[in-house]
């Protein structure tokens, strides 16, 4: 039965894909949505049995790859970590499916869109139910392809297919690390099955491994390589450049893939590997620092962007940073908790933004919005709820999970954890700031759109607002409901064996006993952030421009996304093509062919030309040559033999 959770979306995708050939859009919508809803119901049952009931289960489906000792089976693993992800994935995915019926209603290829959405869901479910690293890689690449297809869904747009390709290639760079990580794990453990890896991790804590000529601690190497994979998928600093561009995809895609589920796969992977990573303290420190840097870095960009979706995209990037540094300080339950609450409120924000874009006739620039809150009241309220949850205001979902992460970072008492704590607090301030900047610019003030656009502004249909309501319920209550289970008193029993924390790593326990100022600081900072946003964008709207002028270099740095795209373009993209052309023309054509076949044939041709010139046809030439030959031979014979 559990296998159906994973495969129903696949069937839906296949049928919808088939229907798309015959333009049967409505049928495709019905089939994929019913598949997803069924999958969601089964996931709820699985959550009750496995998560609450505490009975993990593994479903074996058969052999996949087996060669010598290298064995990867098709096998679905259902433990607490998995069922939490099942709820998140099928929950958000089914809401996004329903929302898409309204959002895509004017599109000519709705069946294809629904098929891709379900295909993505299948791949994501394969990822979270994986029982071994190679099957996880299957889901990992599968979501990558689905993401590629969906970002490039409007494939006639240059920017869309450019973004799609960028997403795939940057993810491949991460996958390069993932693949090497799998190899390192196999070299070390002789298996890629999670159970085998976890059972042996403690005994390999002090083992070294030869990697690229260096003798390094084996688990650290494997951990960091796998984390490079996670960085690609979860858009962490350095490999984040694809995520903002991915906003070229239709907005439901951004909500599902680039906010709630796929980008959190990296966090999930780190939590899944907790039994191994706990013995790799240096790798955990790396994760902490990268996560913390991403959290602040993305927030600085987020507050300067004008595209409504890109602001939320950078916010996602930043929140993923929080999850990573939580995992890095061994607070995996807090990371998973934030992953869950974030899925609801970020999907809500994206779908709300989609509703705004829909209302504004496909306008995405905040500078051309404003003054529409009365015309789209439901969307407006939803965006408020999402923003309150994101900024971590008391009793909204983000309050419980984000504060938990900051408290754990404070309680971990290590240098990387302290860096993470302070950067995380600063990012919390910026988060609130850019969230209210977005709210005010989008909904309040004087309308900046054309009169024609303003005349068309309308609330979205029920099929779009109802999923928003469902997600809003999650954004309000998920934190409060989940607190005790995920990170509170029932934590140990709930997670069971799916998350492992060394007894010496006490961040999670001590997080409940931090000083009061640690608990209140994030809330105060968030309130301050809101205050500044209201001041700058609501009351004294000339301030932002003045600050931007005053701190122009800094502003440009943030606005141009720290010039990462320009840097990569100059360092990797353009040289690659140039080197390729060079190798082709100078290497293949001039050198190999020049000295090889072409060179030899030219040489033979010339040689025969020279030789044929000797054959003049004049008898006296031949007679003369003969005479010289005789003289030479006689002379040689004389000197060689006669003189002796």
């Amino acid at each position: 039965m559990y296998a159906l959770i994973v495969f129903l979306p696949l069937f839906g995708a296949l049928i919808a894909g088939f229907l798309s050939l015959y333009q049967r859009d409505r049928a495709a919508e019905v089939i994929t949505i019913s598949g997803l809803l069924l999958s969601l119901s089964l996931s709820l049952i699985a959550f009750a049995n496995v998560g609450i009931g505490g009975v993990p289960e593994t479903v074996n489906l058969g052999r996949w790859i087996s060669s010598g000792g290298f064995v990867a089976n098709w096998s679905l693993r259902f433990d607490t970590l998995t069922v939490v992800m099942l709820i998140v994935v099928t929950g958000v995915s089914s809401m996004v499916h329903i929302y898409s019926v309204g959002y895509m209603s004017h599109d000519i290829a709705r069946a294809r869109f629904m098929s891709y959405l379900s295909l993505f869901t299948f791949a994501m479910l394969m990822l979270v139910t994986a029982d071994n690293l190679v099957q996880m890689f299957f889901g990992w690449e599968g979501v990558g392809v689905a993401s590629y297809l969906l970002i490039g869904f409007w494939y006639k747009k240059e920017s869309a297919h450019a973004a799609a390709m960028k997403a795939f290639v940057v993810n491949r760079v991460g996958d390069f690390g993932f693949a090497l990580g799998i190899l390192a794990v196999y070299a070390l453990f002789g298996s890629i099955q999670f159970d085998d890896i976890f059972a042996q991790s403690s005994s390999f804590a002090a083992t070294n491994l030869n990697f690229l000529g260096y003798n390094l601690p084996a688990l650290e190497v494997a951990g960091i390589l796998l984390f490079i994979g996670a960085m690609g998928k979860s858009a962490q600093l350095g490999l984040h450049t694809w995520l903002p561009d991915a906003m070229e995809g239709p907005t439901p895609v951004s909500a599902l893939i680039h906010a709630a589920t796929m980008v959190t796969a990296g966090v999930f992977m780190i939590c899944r590997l907790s039994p191994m990573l706990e013995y790799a303290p240096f790798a955990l420190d790396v994760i902490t620092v990268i996560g913390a840097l991403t959290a602040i870095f993305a927030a600085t960009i987020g507050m300067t962007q004008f595209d409504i979706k890109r602001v939320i995209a950078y916010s996602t990037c930043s929140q993923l940073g929080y999850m990573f540094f939580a995992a890095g300080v061994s607070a995996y339950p807090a990371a998973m908790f934030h992953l869950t609450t974030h899925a609801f409120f970020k999907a809500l924000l994206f779908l709300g933004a989609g509703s705004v874009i829909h209302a504004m006739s496909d306008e995405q620039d905040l500078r051309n919005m404003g003054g529409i809150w009365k015309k789209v009241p439901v969307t407006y309220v939803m965006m408020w709820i999402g923003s309150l949850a994101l900024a971590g205001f008391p009793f909204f979902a983000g309050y419980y999970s984000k504060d938990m992460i900051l408290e754990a970072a404070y309680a971990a008492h290590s240098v990387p954890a302290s860096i993470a704590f302070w950067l995380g607090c600063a990012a919390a301030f910026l988060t609130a700031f850019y969230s209210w900047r977005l709210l005010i610019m989008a909904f309040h003030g004087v309308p900046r759109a054309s009169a024609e656009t303003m005349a068309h502004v309308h609330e979205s249909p029920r099929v779009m607002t109802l999923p928003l309501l469902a997600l809003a319920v999650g954004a309000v209550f998920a934190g409060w409901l989940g607190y005790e289970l995920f990170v509170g008193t029932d934590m140990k029993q709930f997670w069971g064996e799916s998350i492992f924390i060394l007894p010496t790593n006490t961040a999670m326990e001590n997080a409940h006993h931090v000083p009061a100022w640690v608990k209140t600081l994030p809330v105060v900072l968030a309130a301050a952030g809101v205050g500044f946003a209201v001041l700058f964008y609501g009351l004294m709207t000339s301030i932002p421009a003045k600050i931007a002028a005053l701190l122009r270099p800094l502003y440009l740095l943030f606005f141009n996304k720290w010039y990462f795209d320009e840097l990569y373009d100059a360092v990797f993209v353009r040289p690659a093509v140039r080197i390729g052309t060079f190798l082709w023309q100078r290497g293949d054509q001039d050198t190999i062919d020049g000295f090889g076949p072409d060179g030899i044939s030219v040489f033979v041709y010339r040689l025969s030309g020279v030789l044929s010139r000797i054959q003049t046809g004049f008898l006296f030439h031949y007679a003369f040559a003969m005479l010289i030959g005789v003289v030479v031979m006689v002379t040689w014979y004389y000197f060689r033999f006669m003189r002796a």
Partner: protein
Amino acid sequence: MIDNWPILSIVTFMPLAGVLFLLMIRGDEITVAQNSRYVALWVSSFTFLVSLPLLIAFDSAAVGYQFQEKGNWLAGTGIGYHMGVDGISMPFVMLSTFLMPLSILASWKAITHRVREYMIAFLVLETMMVGMFVSLDMLMFYLFFEAVLIPMFLIIGVWGGPRRVYAAFKFFLYTLFGSVLMLICMLAMYIDAGTTNIPGITTHQFADSMQTWLFLGFLASFAVKVPMWPVHTWLPDAHVEAPTAGSMILAGVLLKMGGYGFLRFSLPMFPLASEFFAPLIFTLSIIAVIYTSLVALAQSDMKKMIAYSSVAHMGFVTIGIFTMTEQGIAGAMFQMISHGLVSAALFFSVGVVYDRLHTREISAYGGVATVMPRYAVFFMFMMLASVGLPGTSGFVGEMLVLVGAWHASSWVAFFTATGLVLGATYMLWLYRRVMFGAIISDEVKAMEPMHVREYSIFLPLSALVLLFGVYPMAVLDVMSVSIQFVLDGLSASGLSILAAK
């Protein structure tokens, strides 16, 4: 009863018998052309059917060669007519017989002059390919191995593009150069061992110094066939000029002759030299993976780009073989089978649009997905298989090769894995420029949708690529005993790499 049939001889020579039928066709030019197409299609399809018992009756658990046939030929000289297959050659026989009818279908409309001669060339080519894979006598192997050149030379040289003569001669000279050295080595082996029987020579111990020279002689031949860097430059030219079906067979089967040769000759017969030269092979293969991937990125001709990608993919194969690990060799074998299907499909994909627009320039296209959505699906699937997406056959081979490569050295694995990134880059870029974007040319706008004939080529290829991606054991199980046999032979010769295991 079926056990007694000389099934390998039948599969090998049936296409040659088909040639007789082709010669008997009479009538005006159009009748001859049409009948030749049908005869060739029927003969090659029937050959495929006849080869199926090989697959069904093959005993994966048995050690050694199956379906053996021995005949008296040059009795008393140690040379004889000897055929047989094991888990290493059987998949290649099936690949050849499977691809041949598809290639003939692919030539249906594209070839319009001298159709009969073209079909004769293809059927002769099939006999030579199959014969090469089933030969268990070195002299027979050599004859088939060389004879493959002749029909392919004609296919490129007669039915090829504008620079066909240059490409055909380049192809011929390169491969002939390698073969001469191989022939000298074979003579030396015959003198030393007193037989040309392959199973017999495999158990013969050549002296260390002799192994070195023999290895290098065979390397010269096989490296050209694979092709390995830096003797790969014939391949892009040959592919660009060859007709679509010629490219399909060239990439699908002919490139595998080198890899097969390494597994049949170099590794089992010259184990010490193989170990000694493994670092050289790794170096050349890694250069191939990175160098040709970058060159592929710079191409503006679709076929040339896919040709360069073939060189990169075959780099994985040679790395896998010389890791001398079970995963490495199995991965290399799997990669060859997978590449046979995927590259044939990719070259056919180019053929489909070439038949409509008569250009291979990438810049002439753009937005094809709008006019040919179903073609876009197949092309996308094969493109993803080519970049090694898990769930397609392309992934399994690459993954296993990487596992083997790490065993040899993490450096080898590291550089080989860069192929994952580079491969994705050029393939996605190709797809993007051809299929996506707005339609800019009126010719593209007028492109016809796919025909039934084209579906019937894509569908079987896609089905197998998917099947081998989800259930690769269908292939891996067949090979594992034979690979283990090769490895046992290597460890019996006391190699230090294997001793370290």
